[in-house]
C-alpha cells in the first residue's frame, strides 16, 4: 500500500511537471505572435472611430499587466490555468472559460466515446484475427489497418459526405438539428444529439480503431506463441478460457498504455473533422481562433486543455496499470 501511494505521488508530480512544461511551450507560442493584446484592443477601438495615440497603447498595456516580465506573466497564466481560468480573449473580449465551457466538455465527451468505441471494436476483432488462420479475414483486416493510415479521418469524412450527398441528398453534418441548436438540454435534445453524433464518433475513432486492431493483433500473436501458453494448453486449458486467462492478460498492459496516444491521435483529427462536419464545439473553435481571427489566448487555452486531458488519461492509465501489474509499480519506485 505504501509502495502504491509512493507510486501515485511520483506519477502525479511527473504529470504536473509535464503540464508545466506544456504551459511553457503554449505560453511562449502565444507570446511569439506579432502584436499583443493591448495593440489589438486599441486597434479595435480605432476601427470604432476613436483617435488613438501611443500613450493609449501603453496605458492599456499597464492595465492588462503586459508590462511585467515574461516569467511573471507565465507564472500568473499557469496558476490561473490550473484553476480553469484563462482570462479574456483579446479578439472576442469574452471570458475564455465561459466561451469554452460546455463546448470543451462536449468535444472531450465525443473524443472519449470514439476512443471507447475504437477499443470495443478493436479488442475482440484483434484477438479473433490473431487466433484465426482465416486468410480472407486476416488480409481484409490488414487492408483496413493500412487504410486507417492512408485514408486519414478528414478524407474519410469528405468521402462520407460525398456519398451521403449523392445517395441521400443530405450531407449528415452538424451535431444538432436546427430547432435544438441553442435549446436547453432536454430528453429530445439528447436524442437529437445522439442521432447526429454517431457519424463524428465513427469518423473520429476511425484511425484509432485501425491502429488499435493492429496493436491488439500484434500483441496477441506475440503472446500466443510463448511457452507459458503452450504449458497451459498442455495442462488441459483450452478455448476462450486459455486465451482470456493467459495471453490476453499479458497483452492488456500495453493496450492500456496506448490509450493516451490514441486519444492524442483523436484530438489531432478533431479540428479538421469538426470543420468538415461543421460540429460546433472546441475543435471548430480552435480553427476559428487560429485560422480566422488569430486569437492566441483562445488557441492557447484549447491546446492546453487538450494536452491536459491527455496527461490526465496517461496518469489514470498508469495508475490502473500499477493496480493490475506489480511490475510497473516496482519499475518506477525502484
Amino acid at each position: 500500500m505504501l509502495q502504491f501511494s509512493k507510486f501515485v505521488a511520483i506519477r502525479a508530480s511527473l504529470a504536473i511537471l509535464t503540464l508545466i512544461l506544456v504551459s511553457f511551450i503554449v505560453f511562449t507560442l502565444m507570446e511569439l505572435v506579432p502584436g499583443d493584446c493591448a495593440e489589438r484592443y486599441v486597434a479595435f477601438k480605432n476601427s470604432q472611430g476613436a483617435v488613438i495615440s501611443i500613450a493609449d497603447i501603453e496605458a492599456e498595456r499597464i492595465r492588462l499587466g503586459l508590462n511585467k516580465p515574461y516569467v511573471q506573466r507565465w507564472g500568473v497564466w499557469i496558476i490561473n490555468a490550473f484553476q480553469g481560468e484563462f482570462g479574456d480573449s483579446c479578439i472576442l473580449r469574452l471570458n475564455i472559460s465561459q466561451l469554452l465551457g460546455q463546448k470543451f466538455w462536449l468535444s472531450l465527451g465525443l473524443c472519449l466515446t470514439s476512443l471507447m468505441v475504437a477499443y470495443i471494436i478493436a479488442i475482440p476483432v484483434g484477438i479473433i484475427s490473431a487466433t484465426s488462420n482465416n486468410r480472407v479475414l486476416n488480409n481484409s483486416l490488414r487492408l483496413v489497418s493500412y487504410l486507417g493510415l492512408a485514408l486519414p479521418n478528414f478524407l474519410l469524412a469528405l468521402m462520407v459526405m460525398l456519398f451521403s450527398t449523392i445517395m441521400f441528398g443530405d450531407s449528415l453534418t452538424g451535431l444538432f438539428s436546427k430547432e435544438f441548436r441553442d435549446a436547453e438540454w432536454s430528453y429530445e435534445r439528447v436524442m437529437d444529439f445522439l442521432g447526429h453524433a454517431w457519424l463524428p464518433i465513427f469518423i473520429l475513432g476511425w484511425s484509432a480503431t485501425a491502429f488499435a486492431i493492429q496493436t491488439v493483433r500484434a500483441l496477441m500473436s506475440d503472446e500466443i506463441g510463448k511457452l507459458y501458453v503452450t504449458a497451459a494448453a498442455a495442462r488441459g486449458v483450452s478455448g476462450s478460457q486459455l486465451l482470456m486467462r493467459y495471453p490476453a492478460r499479458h497483452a492488456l498492459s500495453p493496450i492500456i498504455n496506448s490509450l493516451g496516444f490514441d486519444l492524442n491521435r483523436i484530438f489531432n483529427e478533431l479540428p479538421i473533422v469538426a470543420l468538415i462536419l461543421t460540429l460546433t464545439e472546441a475543435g471548430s473553435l480552435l480553427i476559428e481562433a487560429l485560422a480566422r481571427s488569430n486569437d492566441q489566448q483562445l488557441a492557447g487555452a484549447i491546446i492546453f486543455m487538450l494536452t491536459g486531458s491527455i496527461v490526465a488519461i496517461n496518469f489514470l492509465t498508469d495508475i490502473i496499470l500499477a493496480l493490475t501489474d506489480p511490475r510497473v509499480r516496482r519499475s518506477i519506485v525502484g
Partner: protein
Amino acid sequence: MNDMTDTSNNPASTDQKLKEAYFTASQGQLIWQRFKKNKSALFGAWVLIILILSGIFAPFLTPYDATISGRDKDYLNGAPQIPSFCDDNGCSLRPFIYTSERTRSIETSFRWVTIVNTELEGRRYLEFFVEGSEYTYLSFDINLPGEALDFRIPGFTFNTHLFGVDKGMIHIFGTDSTGKDIYSRTLTAINTSMAVGTIGVFIAFIMALVIGGISGYYGGFLDSSLQMITDTVRTIPSIPLFMALAAFIPDVWSAETRFLFISMVLGLIGWPTLARRIRTHLLTERSQEYVLAAQLCGASSSHVIRRHLLPSFTSYIIVDLVISFPYMVLSETALSFIGLGLKDPVNSLGVMLQNVTSADVLLNYQWYFIPVIFFITLVLAFVFVGDGLRDAADPYSDSHK
C-alpha cells in the same frame, strides 16, 4: 555489420556455398534479399517509383501549366473529358473529344451556359508530343549579397508535352472553378508533397539524431531531462500545435517562403518519435557484447560509434524515415486543407481540396475528388514499402533459412 556472434552457432544444414554467400553478404544485400520476397512491399515500391517519377516529370506528362497561367477560361468547373473513338457521326482512328463553348446571349437569359459541340467540326483530336507551355529543369537563381556573386544557371528549357489536342484544350480529370486543369495539378501536387515530406523528414531526422544521440549516448540526468522534454512535445496533439505555429505566417509572405516554413515546422514537430527510437536503440546497443569486445580490443569511443554503433542502426533509421514520411505528407495536406498551410500558386492535395466541402461541389463537381485517389495510393505505397523494409531491416531475425 561484420559481427556474426548471434548466428555463428546456427545449425545450418544447407550447402556450404549458400551459407557462405549468406554470411559474407553485406547488410544491404541481406535487406534487399528479404525485401524482394515480400510481394506487397515490392508492388508498393513499384507504385511509389512510378508516382515519384510522374511527379518529377509532371511538366512533360501534363498538357498545361498547373498555375493560373495554364487555365482554360472557356471551361470552368468542367467535367472530365474522356477521349473516344466513335460517336453518331462515325468513327475515327484518332481519339477525340468535343469542344465546349461558354456563351451568354439573350437566348440564355444572359447566364453563362456551356454548350458541347458534338458535330464533326467540334471534334478535337488527340495528339502526342505536342508543343505547349515552356518548362525548365535544373534552373537556379542564386542571389547572394553583392552584385558580383549573383549568378544564374539557365538549365534546360523544353516545351514538348506528352499529349494534347489539335485545337483548344483537353482536361481528362476536368477543371476547377478557375479553369485550372485538375490532371496537371494532381501530378504537380505529388511533387509538392514529396518535397514537403523530404524537407520535413530531413529536419526531423537531424533533430532526432542530435537529441536522441546525446540522450542515448550520455545517459543519466541529461537523458532523463531530454526524455522529459521529448515526452512533453509528444503529448501535445500535433495538428493543433501545427496550426498554432502556422498561424505565425504573415500574409505578405510569398507562396515559396510559406512552403519552406511549413516544411520546417513539420520537421520541428515530427522529431520526438524518431528521437526516442534512436535513443532506445543506442541504449540497448551500447551494452551489446560486440561493443564490449571492441572496447576490450582498445577501440576509442569515436571508433566504436563510427564503426559499430552507427552501422548497427542505419537500417532502422532509414525504415523509420520511410514510415514517418506519409505522416508528414498527411499533416501538410490537413494543414493546407484548413487554409493554414500552403497557398494557391503552390499546388498540393490540401490546397486542391480546400473548397470541396460546399454542397455545390459535392452535388455537381465530384471530379474535384479525383486527386484523393492518387494520394491514398501514394500513402498506401509508402506504408507498404515502410512495412516491408521494417520486416527486412533485421536480416538476422530469421537466420534459419
